[in-house]
């Protein structure tokens, strides 16, 4: 079996959010460490899409940034094509690695430099990596990229503010594809878009994946979009992975109580007037997470063990994993 293109092995990220040194000394405040990601492991096979879902504060955006090298991990390793990516980003071959991994961001208004023309924006990776140096060739390549996302040569000299949200997201995609990467990390790419525009962008992304054999890590909080886009789905809560399964299995037989709650919380479109089953409580403060299993205060199946002991990650034969005492003990 060929090895997966991307492997995350027990990655963790802690941020120091302590008050400034002077305040700490004068007011005797302690150091504060925010554990945004707490030991997450997953694989992504070439050409596949892994989706990471969860609510705010679950750490999925941090995982995305860890994978592209915007942050360094506090612990754990990221392997890309068998090689250590962290080391790769620091080494002399960093540029070669960056050519193969790219990212698409959530906010279509902040992800393009408002003072640059579309030509400069999409052409920057090409000139940065010296893939195309001659001006005319560069322009032609940019036009090619724009056409692949449904825009055209007439957009070359325009500025971002002259485009709609959906079009800007397409420009972001064109920019990400400039270096012909193999792996694309997509951080909530359609969350800020209207439904009909979202449909256009998601269709483009699927077409591109089929045409170029791209591998996606797709971050989202929208389960319906995830169902449409992914092959496998990972559910995160407060920095930990609680369940990871092939899409069909996850939606048909969700095992972890949080996954079930997420699915129940989605409004049923066709059964109008029917209220959802509301989830109890709210996501706790990540600076002060609950002991044991971080979901236990909101879980209807929690027992004493759940409050004391962090559940272990258990993988079954099909590669689906879940971290839950109730599942492990057969109570669920």
């Amino acid at each position, binding site marked *: 079996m060929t090895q997966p293109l991307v492997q995350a092995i027990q990655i963790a990220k802690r941020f120091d959010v302590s008050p400034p040194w002077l305040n700490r000394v004068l007011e005797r405040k302690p150091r504060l460490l925010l554990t945004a990601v707490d030991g997450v492991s997953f694989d992504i096979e070439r050409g596949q899409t892994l989706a990471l879902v969860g*609510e*705010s504060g679950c750490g999925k955006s941090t995982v995305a940034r860890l994978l592209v090298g915007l942050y360094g991990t506090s612990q754990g390793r990221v392997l890309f094509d068998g090689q250590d990516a962290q080391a790769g980003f620091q080494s002399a071959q960093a540029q070669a690695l960056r050519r193969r991994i790219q990212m698409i961001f959530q906010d279509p208004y902040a992800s393009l430099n408002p003072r640059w023309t579309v030509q400069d924006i999409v052409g920057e990776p090409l000139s940065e990596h010296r893939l195309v140096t001659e001006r005319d060739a560069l322009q032609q390549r940019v036009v090619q990229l724009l056409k692949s996302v449904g825009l055209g040569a007439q957009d070359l000299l325009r500025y971002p503010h002259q485009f*709609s*949200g*959906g*079009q800007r997201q397409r420009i972001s995609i064109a920019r990400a594809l400039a270096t012909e990467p193999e792996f694309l990390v997509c951080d909530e790419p359609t969350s800020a878009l*209207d*439904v*009909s*525009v*979202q*449909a*256009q962008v*998601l*269709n483009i992304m*699927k077409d591109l994946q089929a045409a170029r054999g791209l591998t996606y890590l797709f971050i989202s*909080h*929208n*389960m*319906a*979009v995830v*169902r*449409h886009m992914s092959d496998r789905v990972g559910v995160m809560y407060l920095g930990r992975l609680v369940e990871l399964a092939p899409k069909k299995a996850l*939606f048909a037989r969700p095992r972890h109580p949080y996954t079930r*709650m*997420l*699915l129940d*919380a*989605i*409004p*049923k*479109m*066709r*059964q*109008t*007037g*029917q*209220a*959802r*089953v*509301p*989830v109890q409580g*709210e*996501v706790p403060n990540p600076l002060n997470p609950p002991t044991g299993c971080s979901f236990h205060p909101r879980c209807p199946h929690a027992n004493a063990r759940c409050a004391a002991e962090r559940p272990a990650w258990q993988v079954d034969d099909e590669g689906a994993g879940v971290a839950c005492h109730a599942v492990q003990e057969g109570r669920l």
Partner: protein
Amino acid sequence: MSLLQVRNLVVEFPSRHGVLRALDQVSFDIAPGEILGVVGESGAGKSLTGAAIIGLLEPPGRIAAGEVWLQGERIDNLSQQQLRPLRGRKIGAIFQDPLTSLNPLYTVGQQLVETIRTHLPMSNSSARARAIALLEETGIPAAAQRIDHYPHQFSGGMRQRVVIALALAAEPVLIVADEPTTALDVSIQAQIIGLLKRLCRDHGAAVMLITHDMGVIAETCDRVAVMYAGRVAEIGPVHRVINQPAHPYTRGLMAAIPDIDSERERLYQIDGAMPRLNAIPSGCAFHPRCPQAFERCGLERPELTAGGAGQAACWLALEGRM
């Protein structure tokens, strides 16, 4: 009799490109105690409709034509002075961002009491008692203590509950809620929507729920109005509009939403984008993007019947071509 009647509302913005019509002959009714959803994509004008009704249009935007009637009295031509006792007492408002809806410098209790005493003749202590009761109703634990907390001491979902309490404080007959759950997590959304629905039923307030999320509309509203390019494209009972949409735009919208319960290779996409205000097509605003458009669509603008019973502003429907 309808609680709220909007008739041929026109909102315009003078700009350097000429006068832009952001709302073009919008009409609908809300019955007492009813929940009407106003759904549409960005730029459709749904937030503007809410702002126009409350009288919070930002200049240079202004109501250029049309009428708004609340409980049989006209409110669109009132001055800010005359509108003030109306706002809060008859119409309550809930906005999208709970962070900026509350004044960070005052406690939650102070803001509640101020609103209550502005509109209802009450002493300080009875207003405070009422405020605590409201907070308890919105599900805030330990309301008697938390009433003296500042907004930053509440989480996002809790803050939105406080905002709902504020909106209901003076027992209004109509609540205008503009994207009340968009900034919240999906699990909290369900809580807040359920709360809003329940409280409005209990207090007898009608709700105008503005959102872009069809799912929220499906589970909350009695009727829904679909807006496109500053006009109402379709209006009717929510069950009918969602399951048997009459307007091609609504159909396209419903088809473009990824469904949690089924799988499709490609999502249906409506080609093109909503027209900009300075480039609204003649006739039906949707016709350039409509797969079923015919000659009349580009020439004449189709109208909704007045009163908005259950109609689509579409020649296909009006001519019975469906």
